[in-house]
């Protein structure tokens, strides 16, 4: 479970989140909201990439402030732009990067990389330079680079924004099949219709919280 207690966050003088308290226990959670509503900041708080100005975030009892490293091992994060997430030039090398950073044994790294290449359909790109891949393939690689670390929670920050229709479908199918707890920041309302819970943020506050069947229409209505 991820728990936020009285979270406030500001960038310098600019407040982004105001006194948020949430318990995230569902398997599929969506975070919705307009540009600048604070949803990406909220997502980054969940795995300790950002520490709150006030309040605490705890993942399975681990505080992001004092146990940041352990938290990031449990919570994977997929960014909107895969180009800034891919570190090594070729697909196979990039998949191994996070595993090497975790200092796993070499044979375990090889086993997990081979599994990820097969599972996410990247085997034929194994030795291909990442910069020659299409946007959808890069996004798939970025997602695989996180999933190969086998986190218990995965946060996606607008994973379909830069994708065409076919790749968007591919990513949505992949998300649906994940056994982990998935938290998705998105503008893609169709993607979240079968989620367990959707939060709507506005000016750094939760203005709607519940099943998407209730919160998505409320969000659309608020957009006017």
């Amino acid at each position, binding site marked *: 479970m991820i728990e936020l207690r009285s979270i406030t966050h500001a960038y310098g003088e600019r407040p982004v989140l105001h006194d948020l308290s949430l318990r995230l226990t569902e398997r599929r959670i969506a975070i919705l909201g307009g540009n600048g509503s604070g949803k990406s900041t909220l997502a*980054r708080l969940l*795995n300790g*990439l950002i520490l709150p100005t006030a309040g605490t975030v705890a993942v399975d009892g681990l505080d992001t402030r004092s146990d940041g*490293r352990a938290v*990031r*091992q449990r919570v*994977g*994060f997929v*960014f909107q*732009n895969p*180009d*800034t*997430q*891919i*570190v*090594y*030039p*070729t697909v*196979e*090398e990039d998949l*191994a*990067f*996070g595993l*090497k*950073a*975790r*200092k*796993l*044994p*070499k044979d375990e790294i090889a086993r997990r990389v081979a599994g990820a290449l097969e599972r996410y359909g990247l085997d034929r790109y*194994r*030795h291909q*330079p*990442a*910069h020659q891949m299409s946007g959808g393939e890069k996004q798939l690689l970025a997602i695989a*680079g*996180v999933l190969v*670390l086998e986190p218990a929670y995965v946060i996606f920050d607008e994973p379909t924004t830069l994708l065409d229709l076919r790749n968007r479908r591919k990513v949505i199918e992949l998300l649906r099949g994940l056994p982990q707890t998935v938290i998705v920041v998105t503008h893609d309302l169709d993607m979240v219709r079968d989620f367990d819970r959707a939060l709507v943020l506005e000016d750094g506050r939760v203005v709607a919280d519940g099943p998407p069947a209730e919160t998505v229409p409320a969000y659309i209505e608020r957009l006017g």
Partner: protein
Amino acid sequence: MLGLYLHRESPVHRLPAGAKLGGLLLVTVAVLALPGAWGALTAGLIGAAVLVAARLPAGRVLAELRAPVVMLTLLFGFQALLAGGGWEETAVAVARFAALILLATLVTLTTRVMDMVDLFERLFGLLRPVGVNPAKMALMLALTIRFIPLLGEQVREVRMAQRARGVERNIAALFVPLLVKILTMADDLTAALEARGYDPADAGTKNSTQR
């Protein structure tokens, strides 16, 4: 010049990165020590043998040499004109360096960046007593290689956007948005490295279980 890894099932690809770089160093010393055209000829023959053994497409590898050979010809040509050397000397000097660039290109085309980075991490380890962090240096090397094509794309993108707005050649118009893009990219990359388990505080510790 110095293309990225091109995968093939070949004995050259299977050689350890250290052996390939060590070999390149030895041949470089030999080429520079041998008199006249012999050095260039020897390196050229070795290069041709490696090219065949590595099963790489000759056309693509030789295309990598085009730009440096033009540059070297101009450089040594001017030197010959100004210092009064003959065309034979210019040809030998260009051939020597072209052969060495061919060999260096073959090393990078047949060695995975990760293997190269691991090797450099071990070499940088020798500088640990003077405060060098080998893991950070190695990551810097990997990121440089990875981000060169990406930066090229960013430059092309900004130039196209400028052209679309009627600006053909303006350094400031190129530099400012490019700088903003690079800084944003650096920021996102830092967050992504952290999210993928890279811990800068831990980067200096070598893992004994890795090999």
